[in-house]
């Protein structure tokens, strides 16, 4: 089984290396090795998924008979030792080992270990499946490009990095591949490097991601200094690591072993900063729309379906850390704590709204979709931020379905772009349904899925998200109560001078130990209910926005009178089969994945909740019996239908009303069109001041520091220039100088000597 797991990333890497070495010879055939290896990788992923599914079933069968069963299921495949520094961690802070003992020294031991659980297996299947289709599509789309083979090398490298990202079992290696996918993204955005916009967009993407990685790196340092290890899993047999893994079975079996308190909140907040960068959440979302300068298959694969969801993956993966942070406040709102999970939810919700508003007025088809991606990613974070089993499953499920229909929409827009001679401005073409029937049909399915209409994929996942928010705004989840106890205990502990907190004891302790527990602000759920209630309505509103801008783009592209830009030339026809086949496959998926894996079967949630990170007690206790919320589904659908209806009214006809409304809304319209001027704001607030500072530093360097150095150098020169005046060549002057010197010397000795 381990070999199968290793094969998943190894195959695309092998393909990429093969094409890198032989591409100059293969040329137009370069896509074959990549398509084949990624497809093989997909089959291996299916094998892994199947194995995980079987083991999970076995595990569940044991559930009642064996109380010491492991939490969830994970398989671990070590490959090689990346780094080992013995006794690197030395402190008096005790570190937990799986045996229940503690140690105070630990090696910095990092193995390249692949680890598969349900979450990883699902991500692997999704990534390799979409990648296969995109690679096939790209074979048609990129046909004839001068650097055809280079493109496929990058794609192979990306698939390798992405599969590694979701399957490594160590935070350092996660960070490695986190940046590696960023580098692939940089290379692919800048693939047409001769376009200045593409080069600039690539740079911007990497830089903004670097800002996010800044947070992620700090989170890593905090994890290392507090856990003494960076592994997810517990030490394996024969390994040199001794400390219980951060997300390993030892801690999951006994959640008290997680770090709690302020540090836990800091870890979560910093992890989320990293996620904001990679998953394009406000305020680091600015790179994603620019990234559309890259080739469209890249936009579909990296900037819609896979890489940008890495943040969602990471938050899901680190659920235990977020749960450990519990109700510990990031800051206080009045008397109520604002927790790390609320941060995730609020940023997600705000991003969803912001991006949705911007998408309303964009005229570039790909940018509409890009902002839609940002908005949908915000939706996912919104769900993850509920901190309940329901919400996390919903977020991941939306990630899953979104990958299909968003990839479909991007590939569809690529098909349009291909036909229109690389014109992507929707004002320059219209009525394309007549000449591009397949693209039109599949695009429509994508739009319906994105808008979240029954029974398309988006409906099920969106419904789950709304339901989880709805649930969170009313219910009184167990987690909150526990967390409330924890916050109380941490207050208690901070009074203790011994520096230790006794969370473990609290589960037995009854409120009589904490007489003030009844009016402890953490028990006052008004704030959290209010917040999540607000976010619920916001999410419903965003569903309407989504439906509107999706269909606006759809109508502008495919309806109205047939108009084709001059750049298209004689090229304006349906795309070749290599491009339409993936569209059709994805369209089928966009229709069915929701129904097959979603609420009707629970296949997705049943499997996902067996991920160790999501199966342990604290989070599993928040799970509620799945039920279909008719009212939530109803309101979600109604709002979406209103959005579609509005779009049909405004954009199906001659679009006069649309222009009128744009004119009437004046500055609001400009705000949306100008993307809320966030780019410009950053330019003024960060970029220019830093550049000014840079030039200032350079001036300081040239004149002040180097000036000081030169001054020091000038002192001997000046002294020499003065002294040389004494060398006048007159013997008697020299003699006089000698005599005077002698006098001074004798005088000095007489006065000061002994």
């Amino acid at each position: 089984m381990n070999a199968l797991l290793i094969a998943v990333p190894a195959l695309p890497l092998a393909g990429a290396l093969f094409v890198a070495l032989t591409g100059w010879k293969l040329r137009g055939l370069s896509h074959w090795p990549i398509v084949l290896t990624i497809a093989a990788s997909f089959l291996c992923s299916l094998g892994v998924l199947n194995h995980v599914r079987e083991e999970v079933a076995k595990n569940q069968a044991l559930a009642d008979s064996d109380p010491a069963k492991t939490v969830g299921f994970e398989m671990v495949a070590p490959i090689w030792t990346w780094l080992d520094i013995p006794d690197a961690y030395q402190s008096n802070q005790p570190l937990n080992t799986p045996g229940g003992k503690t140690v105070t020294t630990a090696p910095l031991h990092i193995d390249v270990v692949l680890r598969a659980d349900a979450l990883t297996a699902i991500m692997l299947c999704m990534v390799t499946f979409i990648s296969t289709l995109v690679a096939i599509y790209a074979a048609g789309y990129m046909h004839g490009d001068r650097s055809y083979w280079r493109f496929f090398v990058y794609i192979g490298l990306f698939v390798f990095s992405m599969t590694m990202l979701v399957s490594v079992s160590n935070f350092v290696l996660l960070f490695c591949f986190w940046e590696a996918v960023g580098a692939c993204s940089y290379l692919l955005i800048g693939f047409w490097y001769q376009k200045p916009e593409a080069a600039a967009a690539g740079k911007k993407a990497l830089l903004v991601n670097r800002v996010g990685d800044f947070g992620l790196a700090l989170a890593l340092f905090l994890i290392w200094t507090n856990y003494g290890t960076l592994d997810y899993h517990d030490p394996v047999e024969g390994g040199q690591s001794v400390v219980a893994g951060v997300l390993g079975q030892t801690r999951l079996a006994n959640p008290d072993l997680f770090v709690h308190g302020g540090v836990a909140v800091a870890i979560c907040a910093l992890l989320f900063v990293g996620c904001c960068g990679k998953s394009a959440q406000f305020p680091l979302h600015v790179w994603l729309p620019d990234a559309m300068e890259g080739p469209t298959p890249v936009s579909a694969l990296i900037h819609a379906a896979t890489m940008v969801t890495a943040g969602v993956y990471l938050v899901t993966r680190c659920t235990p850390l977020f749960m450990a942070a519990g109700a510990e406040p990031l800051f206080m709102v009045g008397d109520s704590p604002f927790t790390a999970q609320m941060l995730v939810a609020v940023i997600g919700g705000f991003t969803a709204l912001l991006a949705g508003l911007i998408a309303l007025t964009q005229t570039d088809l790909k940018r509409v979709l890009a902002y839609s991606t940002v908005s949908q990613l915000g939706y996912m974070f919104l769900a993850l931020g509920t901190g309940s089993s329901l919400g996390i499953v919903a977020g991941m499920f939306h990630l899953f379905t979104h990958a299909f229909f968003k990839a479909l929409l991007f590939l569809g827009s690529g098909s349009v772009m291909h036909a229109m001679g690389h014109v992507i401005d929707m004002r320059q073409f219209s009525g394309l349904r007549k000449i591009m029937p397949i693209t039109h049909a599949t695009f429509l399915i994508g739009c319906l899925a994105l808008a979240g209409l029954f029974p398309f994929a988006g409906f099920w996942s969106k419904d789950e998200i709304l339901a989880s928010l709805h649930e969170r705004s009313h219910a009184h989840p167990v987690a909150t109560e526990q967390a409330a106890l924890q916050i109380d205990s941490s207050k208690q502990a901070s009074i203790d001078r011994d520096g230790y907190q006794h969370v473990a004891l609290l589960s037995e302790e009854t409120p009589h130990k904490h007489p003030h527990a009844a009016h402890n602000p953490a028990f006052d759920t008004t704030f959290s209910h209010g917040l999540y209630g607000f976010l619920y309505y916001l999410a419903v509103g965003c569903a309407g926005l989504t439906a509107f801008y999706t269909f606006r783009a759809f109508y502008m592209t495919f309806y109205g009178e047939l108009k084709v830009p001059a750049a298209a030339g004689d090229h304006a026809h349906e795309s070749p089969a290599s491009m339409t086949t993936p569209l059709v496959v994805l369209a089928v998926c966009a229709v069915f994945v929701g129904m097959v894996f979603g609420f009707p079967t629970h296949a997705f949630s049943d499997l996902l909740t067996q991920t160790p990170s999501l199966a342990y007690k604290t989070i599993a206790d928040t799970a509620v019996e799945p039920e279909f919320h008719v009212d939530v589904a109803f309101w979600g659908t109604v709002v979406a239908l209103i959005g579609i209806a509005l779009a049909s009214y405004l954009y199906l006809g001659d679009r006069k009303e649309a222009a009128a409304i744009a004119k009437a809304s004046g500055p609001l319209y400009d705000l949306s069109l100008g993307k809320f001027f966030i780019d410009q704001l950053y330019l003024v607030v960060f970029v220019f001041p830093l550049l000014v500072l840079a030039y200032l530093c350079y001036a300081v360097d040239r004149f002040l520091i180097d000036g000081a150095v030169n001054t020091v150098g000038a002192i001997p020169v000046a002294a020499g220039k003065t002294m040389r005046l004494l060398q006048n060549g007159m013997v008697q002057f020299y003699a006089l100088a000698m005599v005077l010197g002698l006098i001074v010397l004798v005088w000095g000795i007489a006065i000061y000597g002994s």
Partner: protein
Amino acid sequence: MDLSQLLLLSLLIPLLGALAIAVSGGASPHLARGIALITSLATLAAAGWVTCGGSHVTGDVAVTTYNWLGANSSVDVKFSVGLDGLSLWMYGLSALLSVTAILVSWTAIKERQPGFYALLLILETGMLGVFSARDLLLFYIFFEFTLIPLFFLIGIWGSEERKYAAVKFFLFTLAGSLLTFVALLAIVLHAASVAPVDFNTARMTFDIKELAERLVRDPLPLNWQFWIFLGLFAGFAIKVPLFPLHTWLPLAHVQAPTAGSVILAGILLKIGTYGFVRFSLPMLPDATVACMPWVLGLSVAGIIYGALVALAQSDIKRLIAYSSVSHLGFCMLGIFALNKTALTGGLLQMINHGLSTGGLFAVVGMIYERYHTRQIDQLGGLARRLPWLTFMMLLFTFSSIGLPGLNGFVGEFLVLTGIFQRGWVGPSWMQSSLMWIAILSVTGVVLGAWYMLYLVQRVFYGPLYEPAGDHGHGNHAHGQADHGHAAQGLAAHGHDAHGGDHGHDAHGHHAEPPLPPGPTDMNCREFFALAPLVVFMFWIGLKPQDFTKRLDESWKYAAPAAAALDKATPPVTVPAKIAAGTKPQTHSVLKQGAE
């Protein structure tokens, strides 16, 4: 032939090569470079063998000792060479980069070739010697010995302001290293005064190991340590160069010939950091601890300052020179964090910087050879013209900005992790300051990505833009060096705002115009100059364990200082609860307990 003989041979071969060049002098200008290449390859073979052989064991390897004053002299000064974990990789890297330096000079140096290559070979002996010396006097001799050849390399074969640059470089570093010499002698004299009364050991010793042992046993008084530390600091910090003693560096780099820049950035700067680990940490632990906050502060200032100034540059070489200031700050951070992880990272970063910045300077040299300019605004879109060179540049850039999978990441990660942890377990004052230092250094990483990507974007991406006129000799596609051609700084491709000009000419439109004649891409020689660096970059990035396992033992040099730091600041007290069997919690509250 055992390792110690090979080590001696590796020191001797370059000198013999230089002699051979001197003898064959004016026979043919190209003979010199041939001899130099063969000599440096032979040296690499010997040194590589020693490095490989030494990488599997621990402790000192390849030791050779000859007494200069006879075995019974009361002054123990020897010709003693050998390698340990600290010096092994730098020794190997010196031999490697020397070959690169000779290969990149192959066609770039047209005048006085024999002198150039002879000096380069002499410099190689100096570099190999400084890392293999086990005797203090021998170390200092080699330390200064590296200065003279480079002075001439910059002063004779440099660019326009070469003389000013050479003199400034020479005086600046010499001024510091003379103070270092005084400090080293003070160490020797003090150690002589605390020598054990034993007729078998000489009272006054120059043996570095023996000195360290004596000074650990009998530490210097703090005020002595402090002044000696300042003396060492003067020489080594200028060599590193630590902010604000760095101003000689950009000038020297910009004016030096490519080979000089490669060697200077790759090896010579590391002598400073090496000296700190070799002398200051083990011999002056208390002064090191006392000055640690200042050195760390200057390092982090250098990291950010260097990155910011690099952002303001218009000259490629100067930009990379300032990036060196920034990167060497990480080495210093790692060394002075007095933490095992950080030290390993700092030492690894020394190798990493040698590989990546050495490579960057080599690439810039290749561009300069083709276009005779280093100005960022005179170049653009070179990826179209020089795809392989661009590929190499991207690799070195990625390595330089610390992208995982390549070497730079490992060093930076270890340094920052180590320093963060050092702060975390330390007392509260150190906790806050070291954590801020770590956080600020991470901003340096972000800025580093900014200026390097800016460089790549401006010079290699975008529409092709080349300076007008003569593009040098021997690099033309059609050998038309003499008459200017059509590539007069024009955008080679017209392209519209919607990005029409990328590929897709299968359907007959958007056909790319053919490239105007101009310089050709990398040739075989240039590829082999850079390829070894790339191989090691990947090796360190993918399996750093092979390298760090030998660096581990260097911790013994920092251990006295780390012990002094722990002594100076009482460690966190462990609550009795753990001993009593209470379930231990790893907790943030620990922090509060420490206060």
